[in-house]
């Protein structure tokens, strides 16, 4: 059972729809008991980092999640804002994140984008840079839907598992032990995203 964490933000239905299509058992929940009973976790999220962090903290679920992720080592996948929240800090609202990975969340550098507009809202080709199990058997020429104004900035490249280009190369996915994050939206990325979620469900 995959617990899609409901802390009030995110495309929860889309993620659930895709897990259903794959045939994976998933539930949208904010119940600590249900989260503890799940064998995998998914942290979604769209919107403002500060709002996201405040909402997650006030949901009272941070302790529950940290116990599941760090003590029980359950695989967790953060999507978009959900993945950004796993970093130490974001320039969006200048607030601290969960700090689960050695990265910060920074605004796209407009001076390096020339005529490209922020947010980066597009299907982008993704280059995979490690043996992240989520990339197993991806269909050819994988492209993923992105919508974001901020991106990950990693202190060292060990946890970086995919990059994409928008004006410049940025990190669009990471992987550290049982913690996974994607800036792109697998639940909105056709067969490419479906494969990623299927791989996550099979972990």
């Amino acid at each position, binding site marked *: 059972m995959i617990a899609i964490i409901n802390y009030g*933000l995110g*495309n929860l239905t*889309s993620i659930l*729809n895709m897990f259903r299509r794959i045939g994976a058992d998933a539930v949208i929940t904010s119940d600590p008991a249900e989260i503890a009973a799940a064998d995998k976790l998914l942290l979604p999220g769209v919107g403002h980092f500060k709002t996201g962090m405040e909402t997650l903290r006030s949901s009272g679920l941070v302790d529950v999640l940290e116990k599941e992720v760090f003590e029980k080592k359950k695989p967790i996948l953060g999507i978009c804002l959900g993945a950004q929240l796993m970093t130490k800090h974001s320039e969006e609202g200048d607030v601290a994140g969960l700090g689960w990975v050695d990265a910060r969340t920074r605004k796209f550098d407009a001076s390096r984008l020339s005529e*490209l507009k922020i947010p980066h809202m597009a299907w982008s080709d993704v280059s995979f840079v490690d043996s992240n199990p989520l990339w197993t058997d991806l269909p050819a020429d994988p492209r993923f839907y992105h919508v974001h104004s901020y991106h990950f900035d990693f202190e060292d490249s060990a946890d970086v598992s995919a990059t994409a280009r928008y004006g410049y190369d940025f990190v669009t996915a990471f992987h550290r032990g049982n913690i996974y994050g994607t800036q792109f939206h697998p639940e909105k990325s056709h067969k490419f995203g479906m494969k990623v979620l299927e791989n996550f469900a099979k972990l």
Partner: protein
Amino acid sequence: MVRKRIIPVLLLNEGGLYKTVEFKKASYVGDPINTVKIFNEKEVDELVILDFQASKQGRGIDFAKITEIAGEAFMPMAYGGGIKTFEDAKKVIDAGFEKVVLNSILFSEPLLARKIADVYGEQSVIGAMDVKKNLFGKYGVYSHSGTVKTGETPVEWAKKLAELGAGEIVVNSIDKDGTWSGYDEGLIRQVSSAVGVPVIACGGAGSLEDLKKGIQAGASAVAAGSLFIYQKKGMGVLISFPSTLRV
């Protein structure tokens, strides 16, 4: 190279899909679920579903239908038509759409866009405007499916929409709708150079070349109805989608 989004726009009305010409003469296209399934198989970049008569007829949102549609689509999805309150928008987003399209309502409830953007982010709010040229060649913005003249010009209204919280703006030319004669490039150029948010060109695209011209005129993404729905101008329904557009 950056992939540019190509977006089919589907017009929903009382459970069926239709296509208009110049916002009139709505012809039945088919069943929405079936059509969305085909677009999903063709891996389209994004879909916009508009219940195009909802505001004009004062109808509510067909939540059962749009929930069913969202369940068949694994791409970004926007819905517009009859969204009057934050609660409406929330229910649309909870149904599996990540963007809501606001048009007529913003003339009476301009603060609705910000209210939605504050919770879901500006990228989840599309401000749409329908534009018609008058006899003297001046552009005007119309609401309620092109039936109400608002007195706004496209450039001023686009700036206002961005200020109100719209993360994207759809500029739809009423004169070009369903004509296969290409976008109103002058209109697209005016609006996209006036605002910092992405502009989606809509109305008139009849070929791949037209889509490219829309991008060259400054649009960040290009939308079309007829081009993806019909075989050719005046011919039968044939759902199609170009594999990719890189500009």
